């Protein structure tokens, strides 16, 4: 298992740790594409995308309708500054020349593997990662689905292939959780979506090893609009993991995904994502789960990279006894604005939810928690608890908390708490007196702060997270 891999197996690890954090991803690989759309968002671009993907007519109609909705809606007037995000400079679709359907590690493009290596994922571990679906550019290029799952009827494809191979299943659930009317960026995604995962787990099937997909973007000014659709049939249980990293570029990049999850009765789904986009990416994502009777949905949302992130995983508890959980971590360093949070809608009796958010702001970084807890009339005995802790490392760092709580039910118990603090000087002093250098002491305290969330991660992610924090904290003694 990946868990048992020695962490120093990666040949570049020493080199990587020696790099200043600003140089961490200061490389990018050559561009190599078969087709890319013209820049900007237009009817013509949408039609081109649909044509290239050889889609059914209903999908083209859907895309065009979404484009109209986006044009009508306009961008949100709240939240982070998006004024530098210029659609006219963005390619909304690029198809890599690599062929589809590669199914062994050797067929994965060298560039992708190179990026993995530079990220410090040990080589042995890369091969051990079960069921990796790596998304390169706007399309899934690699899938390795364990045979045992296939026999159980599990579908784990990229969304384009999912649409081609399972048109009925796809059409039945697609855009039922997040219609294009939902918000501006969901509408944009609906118009130009490409790639993402299509996951279907039949009733009663439990998957022990997490389903994983890596996302990468690797072209200047290229947007990425993955569309993930996850269907958990009654009584199924699995963990889906998505992580993404991207090399640094000169001009702004744009990522806007839509993640739809349907958790049917008594199913149990966890969705974990850690994003570490390069610091020029606008990461504006809509993710939502509909949770039915006695089912459970857990989100783990880690936001480390990007220039601006707006992401509020939401959970609609629509069946009696449904449960939702969100663990959120955000790390904002110089120039970053992490506007993350969680939404939980209690629309049925005896539903429960818990949100834990931990954020760290460093340098001129700004992290915000923006959340909503809504208890509908008739959702009797609903319980919800939200905790937000923010850590400020510098005097220029900022943090905000905007939790909305709307209650229309007498028997609801809803609590919210938030604290803001700085690094404790006494703790640092103590650790220094035990021989730790100041930056190592700070890193240790930060890791301790994040521990309640980090321990919920699969080990390889936790290790990666810890390594990232160490890199961030290097030379941060002021």
């Amino acid at each position, binding site marked *: 298992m990946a868990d048992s891999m020695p962490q120093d197996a990666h040949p570049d690890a020493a080199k990587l740790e020696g790099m200043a954090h600003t140089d961490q991803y200061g490389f990018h690989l050559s561009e190599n594409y078969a087709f890319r759309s013209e820049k900007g968002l237009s009817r013509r671009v949408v039609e081109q995308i649909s044509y290239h993907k050889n889609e059914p007519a209903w999908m083209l109609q859907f895309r065009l309708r979404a484009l109209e909705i986006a044009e009508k809606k306009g961008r949100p007037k709240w939240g982070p500054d998006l004024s530098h995000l210029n659609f006219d400079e963005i390619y909304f679709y690029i198809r890599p020349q690599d062929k589809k359907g590669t199914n062994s590690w050797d067929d994965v493009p060298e560039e992708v593997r190179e990026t993995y290596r530079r990220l410090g994922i040990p080589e042995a571990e890369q091969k051990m990662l079960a069921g990796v679906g790596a998304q390169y550019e706007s399309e899934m290029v690699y899938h390795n689905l364990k045979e045992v799952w296939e026999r159980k009827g599990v579908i784990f494809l990229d969304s384009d292939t999912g649409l081609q191979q399972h048109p009925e299943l796809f059409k039945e659930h697609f855009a039922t959780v997040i219609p294009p009317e939902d918000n501006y960026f969901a509408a944009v995604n609906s118009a130009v979506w490409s790639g993402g995962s299509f996951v279907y787990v039949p009733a009663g099937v439990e998957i022990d090893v997490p389903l994983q997909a890596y996302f990468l973007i690797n072209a200047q000014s290229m947007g990425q609009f993955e569309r993930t659709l996850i269907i958990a049939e009654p009584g199924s249980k699995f963990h889906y993991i998505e992580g993404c990293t991207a090399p640094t570029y000169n001009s702004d990049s744009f990522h806007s995904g839509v993640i739809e999850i349907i958790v049917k009765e008594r199913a149990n789904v966890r969705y974990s994502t850690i994003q570490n986009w390069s610091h020029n990416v606008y990461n504006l994502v809509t993710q939502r789960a509909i949770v039915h009777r006695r089912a459970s949905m857990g989100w783990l949302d880690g936001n480390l990279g990007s220039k601006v992130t707006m992401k509020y995983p939401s959970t609609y508890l629509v069946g009696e006894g449904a449960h939702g959980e969100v663990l959120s971590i955000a790390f904002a360093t110089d120039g970053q604005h992490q506007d993350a949070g969680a939404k939980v809608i209690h629309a049925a009796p005896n539903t429960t939810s818990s949100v834990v958010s931990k954020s760290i702001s460093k340098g001129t970084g700004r992290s915000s928690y923006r959340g909503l807890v809504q208890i509908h*009339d008739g959702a009797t005995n609903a319980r919800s608890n939200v905790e937000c802790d923010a850590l400020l*490392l*510098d*005097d220029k760092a900022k943090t905000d908390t905007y939790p909305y*709580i709307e*209650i229309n039910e007498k028997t609801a*118990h809803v609590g919210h708490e938030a*604290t803001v603090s700085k690094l404790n000087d006494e703790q640092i002093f103590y650790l220094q007196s035990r021989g730790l250098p100041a930056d190592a002491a700070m890193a240790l305290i930060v890791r301790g702060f994040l521990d309640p969330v980090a321990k919920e991660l699969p080990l390889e992610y936790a290790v990666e997270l810890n390594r990232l924090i160490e890199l961030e904290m290097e030379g941060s003694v002021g």
Partner: protein
Amino acid sequence: MAALKENAAVSAAAVEALVDRFGEPQWLADERRAALRTYAATPFPTNRDEVWRYTQLERFAIDGLDLVEGPRDDAVVDRVAMRIADSDAEAALVIKNGEVVRRAGHVGQGGVVFTDLRTAVRDHEALVREHLYSVVNATMSKAAALDAALWTNGTFLYVPRDVEVALPLGTFTTADRGGLSAGRTLIVVDVNARVTFLDEYTSEPIGERLAHHAATEIVLKDGAKLRYVSLQNWSRDAMQQNKIRARLGRDARLESLTVSLGGDAARAEVEVRLEGPGAESEMLGLYFADEGQHFNQYTVQHHATDHGLSDLLFKGALRDASTAVYSGVIVVDPGAQKTDAYQTNRNLLLDGESEVVSIPQLEIGANDVKCSHGSTSGPVPEDQRFYLMSRGLRPEVAEHVLVTGFLYEVTSRVTLPKVSQYVERVVQAKLGVPGVKEKL
């Protein structure tokens, strides 16, 4: 939701009529005219504006109402007279539809000015001119602009340097006529001075709709200390919008209490700005909505400089299909190090038809701070009710005890026992506790 509509009575002619009627000086006339221009240029809020998102706007409508010219008569009804008697006030003003109908007592300490605003403009023009509109001005909101242009009267309180006024002073704003009205309170507490002030709004049923706008400006200079109570208990045919804003100098301290009990709808915006190091602000709030009342509480704790302390506790209970919004934000400016800021909102829902929204927010721009906020909402705890019933209390009595106990966390922190007792009495009357009437 219906959009708010303009009221033709809010006009340049109305402003000129006020200026003529009160014989106001040029500077004030100019301020009013400028405020009216700002009013005209400011659109009404809609539910798309964040701070009005949960407000039932139509309940704050002003269209179709005439401007209130004055009271029907100058009688001071028992309800108000008893409040004066019961408040321990050393001196009190009763302002009825913009006219002073009673001046009770007088302030013993030399140099203290406590009078109605219209008189103050005449007798203490320089002081008023220096401070009026310096804390709440027309640019802050449509309602603030309306008030700045058309206020007819209000309170002016000035406490000179080093003077301590031992007993409370109070203004009782009341009405016997409906319409569109606007009043204003201006409190200036000079260096190291101390005072307690009660701003109460109350009336017998008026019989026609009153839309009252209030603006409260508080200036606390270095080391000044003020206890300020804003107590809204209008009859159910009134609505009120009140913007209370305070600026605190070095080591100044404000202890405020904002209470909403009466009216059909009421909105209180309470903002403190800590401008001098070491300033402190304790902000208490209490609301109890019943019979479909709609209350909005918006608070701002703005730490503009270092070493400030603010501690806010707003608690509310709701029943009979009522609605309430609490939204508050702690803002810590960059450089405002060593700030301590706390914010707590707790709500008790006594029936399933009521609805509460709680939005406690933080915007923190400095790192060496202690900030936290908390919010809870829920029903009367079943185990506590059960315990009380096991001791022989009837269910409704148990509920009375628990609601009173819930609000006691606020009332017990008010350092004015007479005010706490009155608030508790009104709450009990609303709960229908047998034998308790609001005015004893």
